[in-house]
């Protein structure tokens, strides 16, 4: 297996100290005083958070920290109780999720939503924006949309080749493996020509060996000029590709900064990473017999 590319990390992202809520040189998303509660439980309570443009930001934190809720708030899949949040300078208050997607954001889901009953190609074509054929009266007469559909199909084929799914183009998405469906969801998201790509646990359920190719695709998103925000539990992935890390716990942002520094903060280790990050659990449990002279 050839080794992957080593990503070029971007530095010099923030202004001032790397503290929770610090300002960014080029923010794409700005969140102010955003609160969301479910029943009596405060899921998200963020004073200030700015997501920087053109880089890969990781959002990490224990379960129940509010990461997915924050995600849903940013993409319009949920509405905050209070607060302001904007994308590229435009307020997203009251904007439904499909309009947010039209503005240039696209998200993937933790439980992959590759549409199984559609073919791979149809899945891809669904992603394209501004399709004439999707308007009901023009849909009736191919003359209005045939040419555009062909262009969309060509673009889809290019992306499928890039994600190595082109051989499967006529298969129903249901016949793809879990990992291939993840790739399809990511490729489909790119059909929308997004500015901000939001990935919700893209590595969840993915075989470790496939992780590498998925990571390479995420890195290439940045190289193509897109901004990436992803939620993950896989610390190796975070360390490998993230330029910036935001740590959430109990609904609040508790740390921000480049991965190396953030992941060494004691509070983050205690709440989230665990003390055994670098240790072999076989040693911790005493299952390996460490006999002198016998190394790993």
């Amino acid at each position, binding site marked *: 297996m050839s080794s992957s590319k080593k990503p070029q990390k971007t530095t010099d992202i923030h202004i001032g100290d790397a503290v929770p809520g610090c300002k960014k040189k080029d923010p794409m998303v700005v969140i102010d005083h955003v609160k969301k509660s479910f029943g009596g439980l405060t899921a998200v309570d963020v004073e200030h958070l700015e997501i920087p443009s053109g880089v890969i930001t990781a959002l990490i934190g*224990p*379960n129940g920290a509010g990461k997915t809720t924050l995600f849903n708030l940013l993409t319009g899949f949920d509405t905050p109780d209070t607060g302001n949040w904007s994308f590229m300078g435009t307020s997203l208050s009251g904007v439904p999720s499909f309009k947010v997607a039209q503005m240039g954001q696209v998200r993937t889901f933790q439980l992959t939503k590759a549409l199984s009953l559609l073919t791979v190609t149809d899945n891809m074509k669904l992603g394209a924006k501004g399709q004439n054929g999707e308007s009901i009266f023009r849909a009736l007469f191919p003359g209005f949309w045939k040419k555009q559909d062909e262009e969309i199909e060509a673009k889809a084929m290019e992306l499928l080749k890039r994600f190595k799914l082109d051989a499967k183009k006529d298969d129903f998405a249901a016949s793809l493996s879990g990992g291939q469906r993840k790739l399809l969801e990511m490729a489909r998201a790119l059909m929308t020509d997004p500015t901000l790509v939001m990935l919700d646990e893209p590595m969840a*359920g993915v075989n*470790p060996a496939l992780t590498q190719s998925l990571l390479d695709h995420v890195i290439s998103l940045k190289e193509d000029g897109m901004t990436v925000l992803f939620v993950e*539990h896989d610390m190796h992935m975070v360390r490998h590709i993230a330029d910036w890390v935001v740590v959430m716990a109990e609904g609040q942002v508790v740390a921000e900064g480049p991965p190396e520094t953030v992941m060494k903060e004691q509070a983050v280790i205690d709440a989230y990473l665990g003390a055994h990050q670098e240790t072999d*659990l076989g040693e911790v*449990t005493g*299952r390996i017999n460490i006999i002198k002279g016998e190394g790993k």
Partner: protein
Amino acid sequence: MSETVIEVKDLVAGYLPGVNILNGTNFHADKGELIGIIGPNGAGKSTLLKSIFGLVRVREGSITLNGESIVGLKANQLVTKGVGFIPQNNNVFPSLTIEENLQMGAFQEPGKYSERLDFVISIFEELGKRLKQRAGSLSGGERQMVAMSRALMMDPTVLLLDEPSAGLSPVRQDEAFLRVSDINKAGVTCIMVEQNARRCLQISDRGYVLDQGKDAVVGTGRELLNDPQVIGLYLGTLGT
């Protein structure tokens, strides 16, 4: 020579008619072992576990528990025979308290309840303090703990675990693996299917790498961790 607790031979099983997930899998677990089963998605890891527990119909092959065939037995029958199962999702009753969840675990033999409760709390001290808490209000890692405890209430000799670390943050994942190790040290044979192959193999006595419904690579946990073929195909090099 350790006695074999579970033995699976040439197992063929699947969910949809005509589609086999397992294509002749061979597997065995000896008393007191901690076995790890890893492999790519769709390889049949969960299917193997579910076949053993009677949740998936076996089409060909044999499964024996202490020498006796258990093919065709229903899950509740297997529980009385000493097999416990911890599913990946929906593994607690959210509207019940922790205590009630544990009572559900022991409901086939209520007489054993207090004795088992003491044992379970000795491994999971935290639970003892929160028995009255509603399970639905627990986080993913805490539910994992309750699910494991509930399975232990029937004093199983074999415990089947379906991806115990799934969806958990790193610190909770480590805790889950350490708990499984503790349970195993208390004498329970553990068979664990995992996505986090590295951590799983670090604590396993023996491991199976499943691929396309067959046992592709077999060895001790350490052997598999260091096997370049396994690393290349399944473990990836990121963790190193």
